[in-house]
């Protein structure tokens, strides 16, 4: 999976791996928008450009095997990757595709990735990631989840 440098258009391979306990000291609210220390007991993953040590984004998840679902609890990009001046694009897409792969690996054709969203941003996720909206819950399942994985894996 790759992120795109918005200035040069250059694509960079990324690594998504579990956050280490020592990382939490660097995850300030100023740079990562939320208090990530509250997620210490959850599964938290970080996204870095291969070979770099700078964390560009974070996601925490909850696995719900009885519903064949992985729920995205909290997701963010780093401060410099937010808004129209962002340095790298596709960080959020890479995270969703990464979790989608996890869900397919565990639950196969029943796999589902979900998140909750305010109505004003739900439409964006429906348009960009082909998610379905049920109440406040956005979700992606087969067949759309396969297209999402292939898009981010093969680009």
């Amino acid at each position, binding site marked *: 999976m790759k992120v795109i440098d918005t200035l040069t258009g250059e694509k960079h391979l990324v690594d998504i791996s579990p956050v280490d306990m020592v990382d939490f000291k660097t995850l300030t609210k100023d740079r990562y928008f939320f208090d990530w220390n509250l997620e210490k007991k959850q599964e938290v993953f970080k996204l870095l450009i291969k070979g770099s040590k700078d964390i560009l984004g974070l996601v925490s998840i909850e696995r719900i095997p009885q519903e064949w679902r992985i729920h995205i609890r909290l997701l963010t990009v780093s401060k410099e990757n937010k808004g*129209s001046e962002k340095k790298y694009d596709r960080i959020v897409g890479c995270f969703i595709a990464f979790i989608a792969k996890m869900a397919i690996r565990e639950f196969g054709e029943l796999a589902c990735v979900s998140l909750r969203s305010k109505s004003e*941003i739900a439409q964006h996720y429906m348009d960009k990631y082909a998610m379905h909206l049920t109440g406040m819950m956005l979700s992606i*399942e087969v067949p759309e989840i396969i297209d999402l994985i292939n898009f981010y894996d093969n680009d």
Partner: protein
Amino acid sequence: MTEDKNLMMDVEYGIDSRYKSDLESVSEASALMEARLRRMKLLSNDQITKAKLLQLKLKMEEFINHPVYDNHNHNHFSNFLTFYIDSIYSKRSIFAKDINVDPVNLSQVLNNHREPKQEFILKLMIHSERVYKDVCSFDNKIWYQIYFNNKICEIMSKQEQWQPEIEKQVRISQLTKV
């Protein structure tokens, strides 16, 4: 600047999807499940097969990247092969015919009574390359990687059994000191 104004500026900067209460979580999960079950009923066999094949590929990659040296004597090669065949075919004998191998031979490989020959794995590589063409990217040498990783797992999980006897037969008569 409030959080909502931030959201409007960039919808992808962050999502806080955490539940405030268990009640909220249960009620939303139940509505989502109902909607998903309705959608699942509309899935075609082709879509289900594609999902299973992608699942298999991801499981094989996971096994290669994080092999497990346990004592359960799992034959990962035959387990993955069984999953592969059963995801595509209604009868294993049809797969045997498609790759021109004896069904008895195939059955023995699947039940760990026979090692797959090189020709068998080569045919499997060609077969899966064609099958995966419309599913996702697929590196056909993965079958060989699974086969050899499985061998390593077998050997390493039994290290305590073979090591004492083998150690007796190995000595170092010359050692060049660096």
